[in-house]
């Protein structure tokens, strides 16, 4: 925080500090809890721990074994204090770390000749991409410079021909100048001589239809940049939002020799190891010990299961679960796995967190299996009901309804026994295509998807089960260009004929004529 403050900014913290200093007995001031926390955070030296009654804490469970504890106040950034500082502490698979290190060393070797190397790191959210980069650059002595989208790109108007003297400049322009300048000139304050640029936050302008602009930008960077550049992109399920797919085309990657390292979600064994490390760290240091209690093994395991390879999420859950004063987290047994344990194979009963944690996500293949092999509840008293409701399945894919319907269409046929069942299903798939086409109403997308899913499940009266490979939806390929003789036959007039007309009227005759004439 800068020492000099603008007069019109009234700091909430300093104000409260004054009050606290003025009146050690804080009776006259009616304080809310959040204000106390803020005050405590603002003045570390005189941290006051207030004791809220347990009723005020969000009660997640009914077992009150630690209800009597005091709620601690978190002083510093939890994520930062547990961030890995050496590469051995990273939860990433060692091979991937080696890949990144090799690339950095390669950059080092090429520093004189081709300083502007580019690397693309991809992987699911929370798999330690950024952490790996931070740790490794520190080890190899690079100064990391990161691009963060400015809230507004205000530029001083040098010409002075606009009334207020400033206007909003293009974010893309700012990004470009960042790339070129940050790689060339080092900060006056920085001691490092080696710089490395990091882009994790893509300028908004690049997110839609800007592959060519981006290509130009990188072209320029390769020519004029002076330091390595790393892009970090989190995977996303939807193709529309997938930056690594849209911006980093294969063509671009080969052209500019972009190193693409893709991380996987963190394996549960590695995750467990890191969880143990966090747990011991919590108990070792005095400042932490005051705040956290040791989480039970059950909670630790559940956190790992629940995080699905996302270490950041696991860490947040751990933090929340082991705060002193907070009740321990409720866990629930995963029913389907325990039931499997009964049949021969011994499996440890796994449990997951009950109320918090990531959404239970379901992979496409898994969901397709549920659609093609519909199961019904075997409750005799009630009406026959689908075990997995089509609505839930549809909702899991509502960000990419079109894609899911295409997958259903590509794969549903082998699961049907009779054509009389097929026609009901395909009728609904067709209907859903019509609904999905209606772009004016957003909610129809989900309806369309549900129609396709439900139609397929209900129509399949006698499903054929068994393993069948899932095929991706086909896209009709683009027609090949005309061969030389064909082109000569058509002459100038070809341009006046639409592709459609050519394919339906000309193509087959022209092929015959061209093949026999020579």
């Amino acid at each position: 925080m800068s020492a000099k403050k603008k007069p019109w900014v009234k700091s909430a913290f300093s104000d409260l500090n004054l009050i606290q200093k003025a009146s050690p007995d804080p009776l006259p001031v009616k304080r809310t809890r959040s204000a106390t926390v803020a005050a405590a955070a603002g003045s570390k030296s005189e941290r006051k721990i207030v004791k809220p009654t347990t009723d005020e804490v969000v009660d997640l469970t009914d077992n009150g074994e630690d209800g009597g504890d005091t709620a601690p106040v978190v002083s510093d950034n939890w994520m930062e204090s547990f961030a890995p500082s050496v590469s051995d502490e990273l939860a990433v698979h060692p091979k991937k770390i080696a890949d990144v290190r090799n690339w950095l060393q390669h950059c080092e070797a090429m520093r004189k000749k081709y300083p502007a190397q580019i690397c693309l790191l991809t992987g699911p959210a929370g798999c330690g991409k950024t952490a790996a980069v931070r740790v490794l650059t520190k080890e190899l002595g690079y100064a990391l410079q990161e691009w963060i989208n400015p809230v507004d790109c205000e530029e001083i108007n040098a010409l002075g021909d606009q009334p207020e003297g400033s206007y909003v400049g293009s974010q893309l322009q700012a990004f470009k100048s960042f790339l070129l300048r940050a790689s060339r000139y080092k900060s006056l304050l920085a001691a490092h001589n080696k710089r490395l640029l990091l882009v994790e936050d893509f300028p908004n302008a690049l997110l839609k239809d800007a592959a060519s602009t981006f290509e130009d930008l990188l072209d320029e960077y390769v020519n004029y940049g002076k330091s390595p550049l790393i892009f970090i992109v989190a995977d996303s399920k939807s193709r529309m939002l997938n930056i690594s797919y849209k911006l980093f085309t294969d063509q671009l990657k080969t052209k500019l020799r972009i190193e693409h390292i893709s991380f996987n979600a963190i394996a549960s064994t590695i995750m467990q190891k890191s969880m143990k490390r966090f747990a011991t760290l919590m108990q070792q240091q005095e400042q932490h010990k005051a705040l956290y209690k040791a989480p039970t093994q059950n909670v630790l395991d559940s956190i790992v299961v629940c995080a699905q390879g996302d270490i950041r999420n696991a860490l947040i859950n751990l933090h929340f679960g082991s705060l002193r004063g907070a009740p321990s987290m409720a866990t629930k047994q995963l029913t389907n796995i325990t039931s499997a344990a009964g049949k021969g194979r011994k499996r440890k009963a796994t449990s997951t967190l009950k109320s918090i944690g990531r959404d239970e996500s379901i992979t496409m293949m898994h969901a397709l299996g549920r659609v093609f092999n519909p199961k019904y509840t075997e409750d005799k008293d009630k009406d026959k009901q689908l075990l997995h409701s089509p609505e839930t399945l549809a909702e899991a894919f509502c960000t990419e309804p079109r894609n899911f319907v295409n997958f259903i269409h590509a794969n549903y046929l082998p699961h049907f026994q009779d054509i009389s069942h097929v026609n009901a299903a395909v009728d609904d798939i067709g209907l859903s295509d019509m609904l999905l086409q209606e772009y004016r109403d957003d909610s129809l997308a989900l309806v369309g998807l549900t129609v396709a899913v439900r139609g397929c499940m209900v129509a399949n009266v006698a499903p054929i089960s068994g393993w069948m490979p899932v095929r991706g939806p086909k896209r009709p390929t683009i027609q090949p260009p005309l061969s030389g003789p064909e082109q000569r036959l058509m002459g100038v007039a070809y341009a006046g004929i639409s592709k459609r007309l050519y394919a339906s009227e000309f193509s087959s005759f022209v092929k015959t004529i061209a093949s026999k004439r020579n």
Partner: protein
Amino acid sequence: MALWVDKYRPRELSKLDYHKDQAENLRNLCKQSDFPHLMFYGPSGAGKKTRIMCLLREMYGAGVERLRNETMNFTTPSNRKIEVMTVGSNYHLEVNPSDAGMYDRTVVIDLIKQVAQTQQIDINGQREFKVIVISEGDELTKDAQHALRRTMEKYVATCRIILSVNSTSRIIPAIRSRCLGIRVPAPSESDMAAVLQNTCKREGLVLPPELAKRVVDKSERNMRRALLMLEASKVQQYPFTAQQEIVELDWQVYLRETATQIVSEQTPAKLEKIRDRLYELLSQGVPPNLIFRGLVEQLVNNCDMSIKAKTLEFATQYEHRMQNGAKHIFHLEAFVAQFMNIYKKFLAELVMTDDF
């Protein structure tokens, strides 16, 4: 080395082979100094484009025949770049905006602006306007058609538009009323036979009248198709014999085989094979509505009277959905599945009645 269709295309209104009265009318139209926007409509292969080119020649002289290809670039509002191939001369420009798909609106507006903003430099050129020929105007999206109607009026001083469409029903009324409609009916069978004979005479070939008649029958009164068919058949076998095999459109042959397969077996596995065949046709670029139509025709020919009505009912339903939807294959497949279902039921009933 050009195709017969292009080589022997009549270049002047007076040399047209059929619809001679209409040719006379068109010539009168050119004699006047002013000239409205035109819309030529009629079935495919009736000679719309031929008449348009003759008309242009009548107006501008032989200069319109010096054709050149030009690739024009357009940028859509969403910053997508589109390339459109055009054919043109100093006096006219022919374009097929439907190739730009959903971006045809930009193409139409920008193209007309570009053309219309330059005045004709050559004062001696008889007309002070240029002509833009838009082929397959009925494939234009509604958006593009609405854009067209404004630009048509705005730049009427410097440019005229000639639309070539198959059916006026897909043209919005606003455009229909701004154009002078000229119907070009399909040539009669005797006209076509005469053209084929004439062409062969100019090539120095002998064409048996029986073969000419068969080609005309196969071509469904489509002059272009008839000429291409004849030329392809000539390449296959010459001297001609009356009973020789005529080269047909390969996708029609393929579609016929597909229909036979549908009738032969009705199982999900077969449906999957049929789907692959349909994909094959789509990837060849054959328009889905033609596939649909061909398929229905073949199936209706192949099935019993009692299920024809039902088949057609399903056909209309799924064709409508196909027009509204995006994935043509879904609806083609749905139709095939429905047909398979009713056909299978029909066969089962047949067996039952035979038993008793």
